[in-house]
């Protein structure tokens, strides 16, 4: 039997009844909706809580009743939107919302308390939104360029490192990208290095789902010098802190460190290539710089050579759907 919805049952965060003359009617309609899709219930409470925090910050100085009234308006709007949807759509949304929350809770439990901000952020992004953000990002010439640099300088070198030690294929590409991203010095401006790092970040979301201890241990090993591995009493513990699926043991750690060195060198190459092509776009041109190129600081690099530009054209042909490449090539013409 479905529990009857009363004001008390969703009381946390629910607005003050006296702030809305239609409050009782809105409540009745919510009750009717939540009886059909009870999985929406926690979502309503959570959204009200979030809205209240935002409103308190935005409407500071306003009488509390204004905040309560605004919350009622929000509740009424969500209700209208849900009521306008077919029943199956409401149920599907409710299931997605509930699963998203459960996944997020599970991941947090696995990863430990300190994971909260990052995982919460990842869980709140809907796949549709992530796709549209990614598409928008890829439509920018500067990011298409960074993508190209990862594609032609980093990926092939990583592949060679794995070829030299095939067991390394157990370490996912997202982990290498995550490790490389963490090794790039942070900068609050858009530089070629940061553009490349952002591409790495976007492709390393899986890395962030690892427990913090495993990530830290991986970072330590990733940054190690080969000489540090010889006779280290800590190496065994460090390897045991890594994800078991990677299969890194003290005997194979030198391969991991060698591949890490290759990956870092490749990242340097990718950033330098990004710099040179950015310099080709931004130097001595009369057309205004576009998108990321209006921000990107090319750092005085020499412009790219013809073979590097040809390589770019090849990547653009490979990824015909990426609008950013078309724009980038137009800028270089």
């Amino acid at each position, binding site marked *: 039997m479905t529990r009857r919805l009363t004001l008390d049952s969703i009381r946390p965060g629910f607005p003050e009844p006296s702030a809305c003359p239609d409050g009782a009617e809105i409540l009745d309609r919510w009750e009717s909706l939540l009886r059909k899709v009870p999985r929406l219930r926690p979502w309503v409470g959570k959204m009200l809580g979030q809205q209240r925090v935002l409103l308190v910050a935005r409407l500071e100085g306003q009488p509390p009743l204004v905040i309560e009234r605004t919350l009622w308006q929000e509740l009424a709007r969500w209700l209208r939107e849900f009521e306008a949807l077919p029943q199956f759509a409401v149920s599907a949304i409710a299931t997605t919302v509930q699963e998203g929350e459960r996944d997020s809770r599970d991941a947090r439990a696995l990863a430990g308390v300190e994971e909260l901000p990052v995982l919460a952020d990842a869980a709140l992004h809907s796949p549709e939104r992530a796709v549209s953000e990614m598409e928008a990002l890829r439509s920018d010439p500067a990011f298409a360029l960074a993508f190209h640099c990862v594609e032609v300088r980093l990926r092939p070198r990583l592949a060679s490192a794995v070829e030299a030690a095939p067991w390394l294929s157990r370490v996912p590409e997202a982990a290498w990208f995550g490790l490389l991203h963490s090794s790039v010095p*942070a900068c609050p401006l858009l530089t070629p290095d940061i553009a490349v790092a952002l591409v790495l970040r*976007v492709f390393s979301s899986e890395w962030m789902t690892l427990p913090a201890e495993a990530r*830290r241990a991986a*970072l330590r090993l990733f940054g190690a010098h080969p000489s540090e591995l010889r006779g280290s009493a800590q190496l065994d513990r460090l390897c045991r*802190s890594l994800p078991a699926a990677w299969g890194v043991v003290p005997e194979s750690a030198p391969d991991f460190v060698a591949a890490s060195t290759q990956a870092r060198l490749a990242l340097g190459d990718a950033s330098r290539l990004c710099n040179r092509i950015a310099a080709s776009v931004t130097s001595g041109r009369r057309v205004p710089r576009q998108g990321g190129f209006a921000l990107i600081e090319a750092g005085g690099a020499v412009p790219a050579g013809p073979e590097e530009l040809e390589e770019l054209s090849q990547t653009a042909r490979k990824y015909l759907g990426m609008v950013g490449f078309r724009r980038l090539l137009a800028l270089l013409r």
Partner: protein
Amino acid sequence: MVPLDVAATWTRMLSVTAGAPAAIGAPGPATRVGGKAALSWIEGPWLGILDFEGVKRCEREVLDPWLWRHGEPLLLVRHLLLAKPLSDEVFIDLTAQAREAMPEGWRDAPRPVLILAPAGRSRPERRREYLDALSQLRIPLVAGGSELWGIRELDVELLVALAQLSNPAGRAAFRAALDPSQTRLFDQQLPAAEAAVLDDLVGARDEEGALAADLEGLSSLHPKAHPLAVYSAVERAHNRRRADKERTQFSARTIESRLSARGFPEAADPCTAAFAERADAIAPLLAGDLQRIFEAHELLGPREGD
């Protein structure tokens, strides 16, 4: 009004919401250290000081009203009380809203101070000016000394753009100039970008790296030491390992760490067996990492509760 490059601003917004930082540096109140926010070391909000030196007048004209009406309350809820922005002189004068919002007795005890400086626009000697000016102040708020002072550098152009886009007319004009297929995404991204920038100002989105890993490690060994103090020691140990060129131009993000640029090369003792044993209990460390954390530990000095 500041003329905005629509494509550039849109790219920057997307990059920031996709995870690129808009502000970086010393820990802020929301930076997580050892699984908890840096705020939890000393009860109460931190003091934030925006440095407007290097910020153009037209940009200030956009930022000032936005901060007053919009940004400051949102930083307040992020546990950052603002002083009036600096221009040439370095001094502390709380804003009217901060005075009203500060907890009772907040001004009568040492507090962490976060200077928010525009990235790429400050003079190299500006950091020394912060240090000299704050050291000369005889007020309880800064009595904790430079180990409670830090610097975060921010993308001021993005902040100006967001301030301008909070104005409905500015937003409508910007929206109209966008590719129509992206206007809906823009509506979603604008609040997300604003929240990301404000979060970055207080360190809520700080990411891991070698420095953050050492901060975690050393903080575990000195759980009572304030994250800003630990960070300054860690940063200084990292700076010792930079190439000469980088070291002379380095932008230390704690004032303590800035001092270390004066007397290079610094001599460091080798890690002791006793320290190795202590560190061993916290996490497995290879020789290079262990030596670096040992140096940071030495720089931090003996602490209560060690």
